[in-house]
C-alpha cells in the first residue's frame, strides 16, 4: 500500500496522458479537480490487488462519453457516490475499494477524484493499462468477467442501470444512453472480486502512470525510455493532417517529416481517438496495443490526436503495452485488426 498525495497528481496527469496514446481526453480540468480533492482528503490509500481483504469487492469507475463536453459541463460531485449506492443496492454487495477501468487520460484522475471524495481506497490496477476507445476493450471482457450490472450517472441526478449484458452490447447500450444524458456520464462497472483482480487485472497501472509522469518531468524522453522501456521512433514536423469520420469515432492520418529533411524520411501516424499505427516507408514501425505517443518537442507534453496540426514538431515514441494484450487472445479485441488495420501485430526486428 502506498499513499497518493496531492503533489503526485501533476505527475499522474502527465503520465496518464502519455499512456493515453493520443486519446484518453484532456486531463487539465480533471487534474485540477483531483488535486483539490486529494488535498482536502490529505492522501489516498493505494492498495495492490493482493492487499485487498479476502472476499472484498472493488468497482471499476470512469467517464464514458466526450471529455470535451465534460470540461465545459463539469460534474456536480456526487455522481459516483449515487452510482455506487445504487450498485450496492442492486447487487447487495458492499464495495471496499475503487479502481479505474482505464488508467490513462482523464479516467485515471477521475478514479482518484472518486476515491478521494468517497474516502475509499484505490486499487493499483485497471482494465486496460492504456487508453482504448471502447468499454469492451478491457481485460475483464478478455477473461469473461462480468461487467454488468453497470450504472451510469449524470450530473442532473439520473441513474441508469445496464444489466444482463456484457461485452460489446453493454458498451453499445451505455454509449447510446450517454448521448441522451448529455455527452458524458460517470460509469461504475460491476464489482470485481479481489481474487479476480489479482489474477486478471493489469497491476500497478496507477504507479506506472505516476512514474512515467515523473520521469518525463525530470529527465524527459531519454529518462523515460531508459527506465520505463519503449523506443523512440521518429522526430519530425507534421506536414500534413487529413481527418475523416472512421466508424463511430473521428480519425485520420498525419504525415510527419523527419527533422533531418535531407534524409527524406516520412512517417505516417494513423489516429482514431488513439494512435493505432505508425508506418514509415511502407513498414509498420509500431501498432496497437503498444502505446504510440506523440510528444510535443517544445513543451514536452503528449499531443492528443485532436491537437495534431500542421507545423507541430513532435517526438514519436512507443511504450510497451501490458503483457496481457500481447497474447493471441489479447490481440483479438485490441490488436491492429480490431481497429481496421489488416496487418499483424509485430515489433520490427532490431527494435527494442
Amino acid at each position: 500500500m502506498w499513499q497518493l498525495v496531492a503533489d503526485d497528481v501533476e505527475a499522474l496527469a502527465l503520465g496518464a496522458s502519455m499512456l493515453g496514446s493520443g486519446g484518453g481526453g484532456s486531463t487539465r480540468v480533471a487534474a485540477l479537480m483531483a488535486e483539490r480533492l486529494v488535498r482536502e482528503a490529505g492522501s489516498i490509500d493505494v492498495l495492490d490487488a493482493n492487499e485487498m481483504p479476502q472476499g472484498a469487492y472493488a468497482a471499476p469507475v470512469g467517464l464514458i462519453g466526450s471529455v470535451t463536453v465534460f470540461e465545459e459541463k463539469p460534474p456536480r460531485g456526487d455522481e459516483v457516490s449515487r452510482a455506487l449506492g445504487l450498485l450496492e443496492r442492486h447487487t447487495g454487495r458492499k464495495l471496499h475499494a475503487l479502481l479505474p477501468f482505464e488508467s490513462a487520460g482523464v479516467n485515471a484522475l477521475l478514479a482518484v477524484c472518486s476515491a478521494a471524495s468517497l474516502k475509499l481506497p484505490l486499487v493499483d490496477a485497471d482494465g486496460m493499462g492504456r487508453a482504448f476507445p471502447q468499454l469492451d476493450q478491457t481485460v475483464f471482457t478478455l477473461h469473461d468477467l462480468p461487467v454488468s450490472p453497470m450504472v451510469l450517472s449524470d450530473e442532473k441526478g439520473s441513474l441508469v442501470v445496464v444489466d444482463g449484458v456484457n461485452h460489446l452490447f453493454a458498451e453499445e447500450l451505455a454509449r447510446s444512453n450517454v448521448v441522451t444524458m448529455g455527452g458524458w456520464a460517470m460509469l461504475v462497472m460491476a464489482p470485481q472480486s479481489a481474487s479476480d483482480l489479482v489474477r486478471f487485472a493489469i497491476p500497478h497501472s496507477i504507479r506506472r502512470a505516476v512514474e512515467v509522469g515523473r520521469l518525463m518531468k525530470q529527465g524527459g524522453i531519454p529518462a523515460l525510455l531508459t527506465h520505463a522501456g519503449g523506443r523512440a521512433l521518429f522526430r519530425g514536423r507534421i506536414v500534413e493532417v487529413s481527418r475523416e469520420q472512421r466508424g463511430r469515432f473521428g480519425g485520420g492520418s498525419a504525415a510527419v517529416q523527419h527533422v533531418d529533411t535531407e534524409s527524406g524520411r516520412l512517417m505516417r501516424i494513423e489516429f482514431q481517438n488513439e494512435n493505432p499505427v505508425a508506418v514509415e516507408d511502407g513498414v509498420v514501425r509500431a501498432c496497437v496495443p503498444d502505446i504510440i505517443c506523440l510528444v510535443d518537442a517544445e513543451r514536452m507534453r503528449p499531443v492528443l490526436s485532436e491537437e495534431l496540426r500542421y507545423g507541430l514538431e513532435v517526438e514519436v515514441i512507443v511504450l510497451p503495452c501490458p503483457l496481457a494484450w500481447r497474447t493471441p487472445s489479447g490481440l483479438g479485441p485490441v490488436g491492429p485488426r480490431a481497429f481496421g488495420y489488416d496487418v499483424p501485430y509485430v515489433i520490427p526486428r532490431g527494435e527494442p
Partner: protein
Amino acid sequence: MRDVFVAHTPTLPKVAPGALVVAAYRRQRGFEAELLVRQAHMADAVGVVLPSMSNLMLTTRRPAERLDMPLLTLPDRDPVALARQLSREVHAPERHASSPVPRVLKALRAPLSTPDRVVDAVDSELGCVTAVLRAEGALVAGELVAPVPESLFERGVPEIVNVEGGHLLCAPVFVEDAMRPDLWLVARLPHSHVFWVDASMHALTAAGMALATWAARQRLIGERNARDRSTLLSELMDNSTSLPRHVAEHAVRAGWRLEGWHVGIQVRLSGDTQQLLRLTPRVRELLAEHGLDGPVVERTDGWACWVTTPKMPSSGSHREFTMRVRSALGRAEVIGDVVGGIGRPYAGPAGLVQSLKEAREACLFAGDGSRRGRVEHVDELGVMRVLADWYRSEAFRAYAKTLLAPLLENGEEALLETLRTYLELESSASSTASALRVHRNTVALRVSRVEEMLSMNPAGPDERLVLQLACRVLQCLTRRRSSRRWRTSADQAAGSRRR
C-alpha cells in the same frame, strides 16, 4: 507488364515479377497503399493501382517516387472489374485486333452523306483524332493534329508513322487510279499496344472503303451532271434558230437563263484533257471569284462558259470584262495550261450560241504567242477573223497538207520551221537567222532547198501567200497536239524581231 495481381491485404503473397498490383481492400484507409508500394517494389512489380482512392498523402507519394513505383488512383472504380479488364488486356492483347473493325463497320452502315461522318465514326470508335486529306495534303474533313510526313503522299501505301506521343495511321483511299490514292485517311492515335495499333489500322482501312464509295458516288454524280450539261449545250447549238420545247425545259432545269444578253467565254485546256471533268469545279470557282458567275460546260478541249445579264452590256464594258477573264485565267496555273476567248454580247438563245461561237474563234488565236495574250476578245482579232474561215476550211487544210507534203513526209521539221519563220518575218533572211539562231547563209541554203523540194518560189506574191497560209493551217493542226513547242518557237521569233 506480364500479369495482374489483386491484393486483398497489405501484406502481399507471391507476386510474379512484372505484375501490376491492383488493391482490392474492402475498407481503404490509405495506409495500406504505403505498405503495398513497398511490397510491390520488393516483388519487382511494375505498378500499383488503387481503385476507389482519390487523394494520397505525402507519406504515400514520396516513397513511391523514391522507389520509382508508378501509382495509379482511380476513384470510383470497382477493383475486381478493373483487374479483370486489365488481366484480359495483359494476357490476351490479340482480342483487341477483332474489336474495332466491326464497331467501325457498324457505325458506317448507312451510306455517307459527308466525309465528316467517317471522321466522327473513327474518332468515337478508336478514340483518336482523324482527318481526311486530299492526295496533295490539303484538309478535306476532320482535324489534323500532327504534321503528316511529305514522303507519305509519294508512296501511296498504308503506313503507321510513330510520332511524338503516339502513332499516325495513314490509310490511302483509292477511287479512280489503282496506283495513286485520291484521298488519305489519317488518324492520330495515342501511344497504344501494337495489337491495338494494328487493329486500328484495319478499322481505318475499312473506313477508307466507305470513304472511297462516297468519293466514287460524288464523282459519278459529277460526271452525269457534266454529260447532261454538255448534251444540253450541243442541242442548244444545233437548234439555235428555233428552240425545241424539251431543250428549253432542260435549260430551265439546269438553271440556265436563255433570255437576256449573253457573253460567251471559251476556255481551252492544252495537255491532258482526261482531267477535264475533275477540274470543272475549279474553273467555276476561279471565274466566280472574278465576278463571272455563270454556267460552265465541259467541251472536248476545254470549257464553254457564259455570263448572262438582263440588259445589254454597255459598249465600253467589254474591255473590263476581258480584263477580268484575263486575271481569272492568269491564276489558273493549278488547273494547267489554259487560254481563253471571249465573244460579243448577243441576246436570246440564238445570241448565246453566236457568242459562244465567237468565243471559240477568239480562243483559237489566243495564246499563239506571236503578238497575242492568253485571252482574246473576238473584237480584237480584226483581220485574223477573215483567216479563221480559211483555217477551219477542211478543203484548204487538205490542200495545205498536199502542198507541204514533201517536207512533212521526209520529216524535214527544220526546213518547215525555217520556211514558216522566213515567211512570218517578211522574207528577211537575217531576221530569220537571228530568230532561229543559225547563220544567215544557213537560212538562205534552207530556203533554196525548200524551193527545190516544193518546186515553188516563196518570192512570188501568189506562191508566198499560199505557202504562208498553208504553214498557218498546219500550225493550227500541230498546235492542237503540241501547242507548247509551237508557241515557244513563235515566241522566239517574235522576241527576236522586237530586238
